[in-house]
Every structure is written in structure tokens, then in C-alpha cells.
């Protein structure tokens, strides 16, 4: 278990990583704005879903701060609602990958042998595949043929959960590899041997003794995964295979933008800016965590980064 002193030192190293700190501030601000989207909506007296064909592609004005889209909907509110979906997808898929990856990584690292070989060969297989073509096929699968009732498959939020599921399917191996490596490095340390000598079961040793010591790489990987998932989600949604309209996501808001690019460049700019900011913030945050949580990291000692 990391002691209070260790945590304090990590926190100070994190504070020295200025870019990570800025990223944290950016993400928290964004999360607050997104969380208050409904309040902002009522405050401005607007409805994000309201179509107004007489106010198509309006320029920014006192009512619509960022203007309107091709159906006359308020762009700023759509961006906030889209952010809700994109962040939800990113964080959920990253958490699910971290969970599956940690469990499988711990088990295969601790037990070794056939289980280890099977899990790791499977992970290698997934990692060595052409990712995007595979995701496109997975996203194109008809849920009704998989046995989902029509009502569920047709519901608005189904595409959101589907995208979380398929991205998780391809992103857990990265976490599993890291968790396995961490487990291997501490499996034979004295405190683990001591716990085993006391007769504790494998599950207890893995959860109470190994997991806390493998938490840093898992946390770092999970943070980096959030950024990656948001990026992949935006690509799939942009291609029309991710989150389905009318549910907005930053990716699917850009789908129509290419055709309207000379009339309404703002539509092509804003969602992209937000995706870019969020992804780079999560990546820098992950970098900061890596430096802060690993005392042996070269940039951790003294000199700034």
C-alpha cells in the first residue's frame, strides 16, 4: 500500500508537471460545463433538440452564442450534450477495459502456465489486428440478428452502449499486459510469499497484496485509454457507425460538416476543437500520472518536465 508520504511525494511531482495540471483544470472545467448543460439550457430559455428551419446555419448572436447548425439547433447546447455522450463513452469504456484488463492481467500474471499463455496469446492476437476495419465490422453488426429484441435495438441510447462494448472489446489487452507485467514483478516479493505462507487464498492475495502495488500502471493506462476511446468513438461516429443521431456526440456532429464546409465552416471547427482538447488533456494527464507515480521515472527527479 502506498504510504501517506509516498502519496504526498507523488502529488508534489504531479504539481510540477505543469501541462498535466493545466489538463486537469481544462477537464474539470469541461466536466462542470457539461454537467450544468440542462441548467444553461433553461437559463438561456432554449431547447437543444428544437429544430428551427428558418434559423438554419445562423451566425453567432445574442440568443445562439455559437450560432445554429443545419437544422437550426443551438450549436453550443448541442456541443454540451454531445460532450456528455462523448465523455460518458470514453470514461465507461476505459473503466470497463481497466476492470477486464486488471482481472485477466492479475490472474494470468499470478497463476502463469496455461491460463497465462491463453490470455496473452489472445491479447497479442487482438493487438496485432487492423483496428479500425475490425471496429467498423463490429459496429455494422445487426443487433437483432444477435438476439436483441427489436425495441431495445431501435432505442436511441442503444448505439451508445454498443460503441462502449465494442471499444472495450479491443482496448482491454493493453491494460491486461501492463497489469500482468506488474504482477510478475511483485509475485515473488517477500510480502506476497509471507501472505501465501499464512495460507491466504489466491483471490485474497491478488486483491489485497498485489493489486494495490500494481495500481499505478493500471491507473495511468486507464487515463490514456479514456483519450484513445474518445478519439476512436469520434472516428466511428463520424463515419456513421458509432453514436446514432439524434443523440449528439462530438463525432457525429461532424458527419454532415464536410458537405457544408464552405457555407458553415464553424460547424466543422467547434466539435473537433473539443475532441482535440479533451483527448490531449487526457493524454497529458496520463503522462503526468506516469511521472508522478513512478519514482524511477527519469524526469521525476528534480528537473522540470
Amino acid at each position, binding site marked *: 500500500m502506498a504510504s501517506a508520504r509516498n502519496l504526498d511525494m507523488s502529488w508534489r511531482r504531479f504539481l510540477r508537471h505543469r501541462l498535466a495540471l493545466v489538463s486537469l483544470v481544462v477537464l474539470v472545467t469541461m466536466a462542470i460545463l457539461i454537467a450544468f448543460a440542462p441548467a444553461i439550457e433553461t437559463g438561456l430559455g432554449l431547447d437543444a433538440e428544437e429544430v428551427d428551419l428558418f434559423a438554419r446555419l445562423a451566425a453567432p448572436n445574442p440568443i445562439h452564442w455559437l450560432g445554429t447548425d443545419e437544422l437550426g439547433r443551438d450549436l453550443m447546447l448541442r456541443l454540451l450534450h454531445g460532450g456528455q455522450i462523448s465523455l460518458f463513452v470514453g470514461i465507461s469504456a476505459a473503466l470497463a477495459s481497466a476492470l477486464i484488463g486488471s482481472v485477466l492481467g492479475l490472474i494470468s500474471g499470478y497463476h502463469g502456465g496455461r491460463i497465462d499463455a491463453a490470455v496473452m*496469446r489472445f491479447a497479442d492476437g487482438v493487438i*496485432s489486428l487492423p483496428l*479500425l*476495419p475490425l471496429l467498423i465490422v463490429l459496429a455494422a453488426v445487426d443487433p437483432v440478428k*444477435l438476439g436483441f429484441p427489436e425495441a431495445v435495438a431501435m432505442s436511441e441510447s442503444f448505439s451508445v452502449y454498443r460503441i462502449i462494448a465494442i471499444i472495450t472489446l479491443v482496448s482491454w489487452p493493453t491494460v491486461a499486459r501492463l497489469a500482468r507485467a506488474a504482477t510478475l514483478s511483485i509475485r515473488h516479493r517477500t510480502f506476497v510469499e509471507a501472505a501465501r505462507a499464512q495460507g491466504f487464498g489466491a483471490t485474497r492475495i491478488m486483491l489485497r497484496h498485489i493489486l494495490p502495488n500494481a495500481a499505478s500502471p493500471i491507473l495511468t493506462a486507464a487515463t490514456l485509454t479514456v483519450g484513445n476511446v474518445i*478519439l476512436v468513438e469520434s472516428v466511428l461516429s463520424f463515419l456513421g457507425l458509432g453514436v446514432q443521431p439524434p443523440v449528439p456526440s462530438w463525432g457525429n456532429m461532424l458527419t454532415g460538416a464536410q458537405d457544408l464546409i464552405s457555407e458553415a465552416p464553424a460547424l466543422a471547427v467547434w466539435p473537433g476543437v473539443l475532441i482535440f482538447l479533451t483527448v*490531449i488533456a487526457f493524454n497529458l494527464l496520463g503522462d503526468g500520472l506516469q511521472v508522478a507515480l513512478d519514482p524511477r521515472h527519469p524526469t521525476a527527479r528534480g528537473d522540470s518536465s
Partner: protein
Amino acid sequence: MVGFIVSRLTQSALVLLVMSFLIYVLLGLMPGDPIDLMIGADPDVTAEDVARLKALQGVDRPIMERYANWLERVLVGDLGYSRLFSRPVLEVLVPRLAHSLVLMVVALVLSLAIAIPIGIYAARWPGSWTDQLINLVCFAGVSIPPFWLALLLILLFAVGLGVFPASGMATVSDGGLLDRAHYMVLPVLTLAFAGIAGYTRHTRAAMIEVMREDYVRTARSKGVAEYKVVWKHALRNALLPVVTISALDFGSLFSGALVTETMFAWLGMGKTIYDAVMGNDYNLALAGLLLATVVTLAANILADISYALLDPRITYRVERRG
């Protein structure tokens, strides 16, 4: 070494086999049905005709049997007909794979040519403000959505300045080499961008490590000029593995190319797979995905082997357990 190669080959063959089955099953789960698509436009077809057609095409057989049949035909080189193009699948795929490779190779060469000098420069003074700036730009490079970068480039260079075409591969009336190059500029830039970021970071890390080695200190202490130490002594050792591995990282290149090709209407593999999946062209989608997997797996094996050959510290012993 031979054992290493054999074991990697067997492993990849296994992955390929599993993958081919998975793709086959998954494509069968796409919306629609080949027979329904076939008869879609004909009102005279009766229910018996449908059943007969299904039996004729074998769609009513169990999935394992259909897969086995399909695999048997693939192994003798029969990939079937493309529904969208009404031509044999191979005739559609081969030129498109060539288009993709042209795009990918040009982007790869460009990104390495830009990334290596920048990476070396950053590694000279680690922690300096230029190094930090380069680091930040690299983070930006891997964080930018590729399709959005394409949109921005189109907005700036095609819509705004009007200097490069927004999509396509050549002007119909022209089609000369210069004309084609003109059309390639924006797709290549889009594809190269993420590559530059990645390769710069690889180069920087490898150079920093090598510059700490004893032989570099020896070279310096016997008075070899600094530029010679960097460009001759250090670079050779730092770069060979980096370049090899980066160059063979086809998996991510393929993914990047899919988006880029779709955005710029570049008729390559990625766009073909996307169009085939969206247009219910089973045979084409199957063959395209399979080809993409083969190319990626082959590149992975080559990367592993050359890495083992180039870096004596890597053992080729088959890893049993950690």
C-alpha cells in the same frame, strides 16, 4: 532463430484462421441478407423461388459448413464476385491495395524525413524549452482526430486558398504524374501528421538512451567532432531499430489510411472495406478485411524478426512464461 520465425509464423497463421472465421460470422450478422438483396428489385419472385435460391446459394446450411465451403474456395484463389462493382473481388482489390500502398509509403517516407531530425534535435538537450515544445506538439499530433485534421486541411487549402483539390485521385482530362501528385498532397499530409508525432518520440527516446552509452563518451573524449558523434556514431545505433519498427507498424497505418481515404475519396483498401461494409457487399468486405489482416500480420512478423536481428540484446527464444 529459425525456431523463432517458425513459431511466429504458426502463431500468425492461427490468428489469421480464427480471424477469418470471426469475420465470416460477423459479416453474416450484418443487416440484410444476400438473397433479399438479390431479389429486392423483382416483384415477380415467389416464396418458393426464394427458398430455391437460398438452397442454391447454400445460405440455409449451418454456419460451419458455409464457412468451410468458403474457406475451401478461398484457398484455391476464388474470392467470389463483388456486388457493388459486378466484377471478381480480386480485380477490385488489387489495384486498390496498390493505391493504398502508394499513399502509405509516401506518407511514411515524409513523416520519417521530418520526424528523425526533429527527434534528434529534441534529444540533444532533453528538458530544454525546445524539447518541451516538441513534446507538446507530438502530444497534439497523436491527439488530433484524423478526420478533423482532414476537414481543417480541406477548409484551409481547398476551400480557403483553393490550391489543392478537396478530394479525388486525378483530374479526368489530365491524369499525368504531376496532376496525381497534386491530388496526393492533402491525403498524404493528413496521414503523415500522426506518424510524425509518433516517430519523433521514438527517435528522441532512442537517441537519449544511446547518447548515454560508453562508446559515445569514448568518441567524444578522443575528440571526435560533436556532429560526427551524433550523426555517425549515435544515430546508426539508435535509428535502425526505430525506423524498422516504425516502418512496419502497418496496423496503425491501415487504420489511419481508412479514415484518410474515406475523407478524400481516395480509392484505396480502407475506403473499399468501408464502402463494402456499408453497401452490404459481403464478398468484397470479407476479402478486404482478410487482406488487411494478412498485410498487418506479415508486417508484424517482419518487424519482430528484423528487431531481433538488429538488436543483439533481444533474444529470439520463444517466451514460455515470465
